[in-house]
């Protein structure tokens, strides 16, 4: 079902709030993985406010959908989402990354309610997601498993072990994403370690694939709907073409914003940029919504 204008607007509003909360969190704690947090934030918004079948009051509900953020460093955006959903107290974001905080730079699933896996060491999440999806089969449960990888993370060989495994076991209950923001710590992905032809790789490993604009909420919803309606026996990989630092013009596309900090002036500038982004996003909805 196509996304209604009303729902699209509501998701844009939420994404805007979460972008601001992510930026505020970086400001409170002094620094953070803003670039990769902002590039994946539209996906987090869409999953947590439209698709995931979860119960905030019962975070360990066995029937719940699972989400595994393999690119664990995007916790700077993920923690605000979990707090906004009500899994944790928003006040705790003021201590993000600080000594004895509940939220580290990479979330600890045994400490943070609503977080399904402790990730951070890259190349682990897809294997965990495969195990989660296989467990649904053994336990005869209908939950879906969603997993999001970073593109730089795909250099890790273990992802390709997991990809073979997902395909071997025909895990149609697993929907995976790559946040293809084209940047890693040391530079553009194609300069550091070439990933292209990226979609072909996933196809060759036995996935149904889609390549979409991962910072377009409508496209994200269409892609997830397509994956949920999957009639093939292959798992889905949605490659999200995204922009690192999405929403803050002076960070966008700059790999140096993988991790950074903002002084008060920079923070004010970034807040202003987010306002402009939100205006543009609303204009897009007006133009493109059916």
């Amino acid at each position, binding site marked *: 079902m196509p996304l209604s204008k009303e729902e699209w607007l509501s998701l844009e509003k939420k994404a805007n709030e979460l972008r601001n909360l992510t930026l505020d969190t970086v400001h409170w704690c002094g620094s953070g993985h803003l670039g990769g947090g902002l590039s994946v934030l539209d996906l987090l918004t869409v999953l947590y406010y439209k698709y995931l079948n979860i119960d905030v009051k019962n975070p360990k509900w066995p029937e719940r959908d699972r989400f595994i953020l393999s690119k664990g460093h995007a916790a700077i955006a993920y923690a605000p989402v979990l707090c906004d959903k009500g899994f944790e107290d928003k006040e705790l974001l003021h201590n993000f990354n600080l000594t004895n905080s509940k939220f580290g730079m990479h979330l600890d*699933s045994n400490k943070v309610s609503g977080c399904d896996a402790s990730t951070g060491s890259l190349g682990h999440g897809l*294997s965990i997601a495969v*195990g989660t999806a296989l467990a649904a089969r053994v336990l005869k449960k209908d939950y879906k498993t969603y997993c999001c990888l970073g593109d730089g993370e795909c250099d890790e060989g273990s992802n390709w072990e997991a990809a073979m495994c997902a395909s071997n076991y025909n895990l149609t209950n697993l929907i995976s994403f790559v946040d293809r923001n084209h940047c890693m710590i040391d530079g553009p992905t194609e300069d550091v370690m070439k990933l292209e032809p990226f979609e072909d790789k996933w196809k060759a490993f036995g996935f149904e694939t889609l390549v979409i604009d991962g910072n377009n909420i409508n496209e994200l919803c269409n892609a997830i709907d397509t994956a949920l309606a999957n009639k093939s026996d292959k798992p889905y990989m949605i490659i999200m073409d995204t922009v690192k630092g999405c929403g803050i013009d002076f960070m966008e596309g700059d790999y140096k914003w993988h991790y950074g900090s903002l002084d008060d002036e920079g923070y004010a500038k970034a807040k202003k940029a987010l306002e402009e982004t939100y205006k543009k996003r609303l204009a897009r909805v007006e133009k493109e919504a059916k």
Partner: protein
Amino acid sequence: MGLSYTAVESTSLQTAEIYGQALVELGEKHPEVVALTADLAKSTKIGDFMKKFPDRFFNVGIAEANMFGVAAGMARAGLVPYLSTFSQFASFRSADQLHTDICYQNVNAKVIATHSGTSFGQAGSTHHAICDLALVRSIPNLTVICPADGIETYHAVMTSYDVPGPFYIRINRGFDQTLYTPELIKKIGYKFELGKAIEVNPGSDITVIAIGSCVYQAYEAAKYLEKTDGLKVRVLDMHTIKPIDKDAILKAITDTRRIITVEDHTIIGGLGGAVAEVIAEAGKGCAFKRLGHQDHFAPIGLHEDIMSIVGIDSNGIVNAVRETMKMDFEEDDDWSDEF
């Protein structure tokens, strides 16, 4: 105690076969038990489980790191995965996944590491696991067991189901000589308890602490030394490497003042390392010797030959005991001034 395997059966079964049968027994009782391997179903003897529960058996191919992550995901969803591969790959090959996915997340997954030490001797150092304990022993939340024979392996596997959390159980390839014969079981009142060493032989002159197949060798050495040298050698089966039985070690220091450790593992960081840590913190002087691989890769060969070359067979232990007995202590034998 639910001991389903007799010593007679254990002499005709490889240790891993007993593990395979124990796993089937667990599978029958507990529908959430699943088994995983990385192209080593035959070698690790979990074929029976595969035949009996094909929907609960997963061969992930030669991809150990993925297997550990998959197991972590399964465990978090409520299954109890038993992962089987060679010790070298269960530790070093998948170390980051064992550390982070299994132990940091503290999931209920059980690693059965086969072909440990030099028990796959002819395969060479790529397949010897003589450093695994040093690695896994350092990981928080992980219980580490090295059973002495097939009977003890059975108990360790069954116990691992009853106790939530990650386990690393290290067993040998092929046949292990049966230590726990019905006679010995009766004589010493054998009881497997996690974290509690078993006194296989009583003694007051010296204590030999051993793990895995070295316990049998230590027991043989003790019997021989009693006959030839009149020595009373205490033999402890330290099946649980972590948490280690500190009380048994402290008692050995007080009672015998001489301790030798024996393991099919490097002397660094395994049993010898663990016992050394306890002795060092005890504040009491003690003659101490670690038998094991002396910071060298092992030669290629039959397991029993390697054990002999390295000096962790009964002859090596006899020699080490005699050497250690020569070490002098203060004549007054009073410890109170040695703190």
